[in-house]
């Protein structure tokens, strides 16, 4: 499987993370999204007329939607599947708000930054409320006591919120959820998202 990838993209990281956690190897094809805008080049547009990243190619199958990619990667792994649909939609709205706020702050994209942050905070409050109720039931992840593609879909843009000027300090349950994800075996990092130092120290 080939992933057309940009290292700073939260959505590309989602796919790299899912593959790493489930022990699958991806062939990474780096695309210069910024500043070269290589994802809009004729060859890339031939692959994905939508001109977006990531793109995942498995033989003849070409996927351009990250939810489809998560489903594809876990199609034979029931342990990574749960009641995910609503959360995959939720992840999309995180990308449109917190994700855009980050692109504004990090890459200088033109975005209505106040609106993006405000809607992002609203989503974080919903996420916090849900994760708090999960904790009341003794569960740490979005759909149960083990992670599924729902968690992987929502994690990157949440964890990167501070890069877009949105603090995570006031969300205890989100912090504990992120900590649980960061300590999963096989977890990989991206710029702005780190493994737990405690674990590194213990190795």
């Amino acid at each position, binding site marked *: 499987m080939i992933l057309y990838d940009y290292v700073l993209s939260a959505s590309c990281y989602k796919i790299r993370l899912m593959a790493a956690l489930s022990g699958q190897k991806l062939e990474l094809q780096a695309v210069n999204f910024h500043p070269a805008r290589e994802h809009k080049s004729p060859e890339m547009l031939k692959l994905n007329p939508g001109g977006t990243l990531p793109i995942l190619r498995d033989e003849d199958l070409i996927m351009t939607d990250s939810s489809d990619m998560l489903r594809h990667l876990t199609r034979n792994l029931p342990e990574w599947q749960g009641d995910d649909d609503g959360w995959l939609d939720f992840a999309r709205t995180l990308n449109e708000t917190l994700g855009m706020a980050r692109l504004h702050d990090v890459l200088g994209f033109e975005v209505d930054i106040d609106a993006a942050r405000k809607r992002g905070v609203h989503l974080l409050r919903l996420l*916090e409320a849900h994760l*708090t*109720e999960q904790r009341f039931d003794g569960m740490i992840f979005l759909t149960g006591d083990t992670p599924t593609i729902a968690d992987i879909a929502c994690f990157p843009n949440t964890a990167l919120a501070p890069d877009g000027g949105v603090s995570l*300090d*006031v969300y*205890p*349950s989100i912090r504990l959820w992120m900590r649980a994800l960061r300590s999963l075996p096989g977890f990989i990092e991206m710029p702005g998202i780190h493994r*737990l*130092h405690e674990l590194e120290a213990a190795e």
Partner: protein
Amino acid sequence: MTRLWGIVLNWIAVGLAEDIPVGTVVPRRVDGLDLAIWRSGLGRFHAWDDRCPHRGMRLSHGFVRGEVLACVYHGWQYNLDGACDYIPAHPDLTPPKTICANTYVCETRNQALWVALGTVNGDVPDIGDRIPIRSLDISCGAPAIARYFDHPQDPLIVLRGKYDLAIALQPSTSRSCFAHVFAGAGQDKKIVSRYVEKLRDELEAA
């Protein structure tokens, strides 16, 4: 003692014990002052200025290793008294006593975490046998919240009522609070959690 909202406060709530498991550190803001609250391997809570004495990195980005808090930047380690006792770049050096994090008195009582920013004066407020529900941010100043409930500006706002609520307000800034919510024993946590979200909506709309 700390002067906040025009009154003198001894103890300020900074969270629920269950939200800070052993071996973790979290940031908290009190009236614009940034604190790092951490729980050592043996389970003791500590409240320090969120500022590494070395180059000022936030200590809440650091990590707990047993009974020390290590800064994420250059790895300097601070023991339970806040004193630096290890500098990785100079492993043989005994750091001078002057390298010390600024510490505050931090107490737990019935699952609630309290910090005294000045001289300790008086007992830690008592939430009784109520159970911890959750902490949530409210975009309102503490005086406005107390006024809304027609309650004196105490460290603990006790509402009784159907859920027997006690809300410990951490005034983060002049326009926002972190509210640490407790409810009567036997209450359904989910129902109370949703109820306080509704209260928050009302407060923020007021």
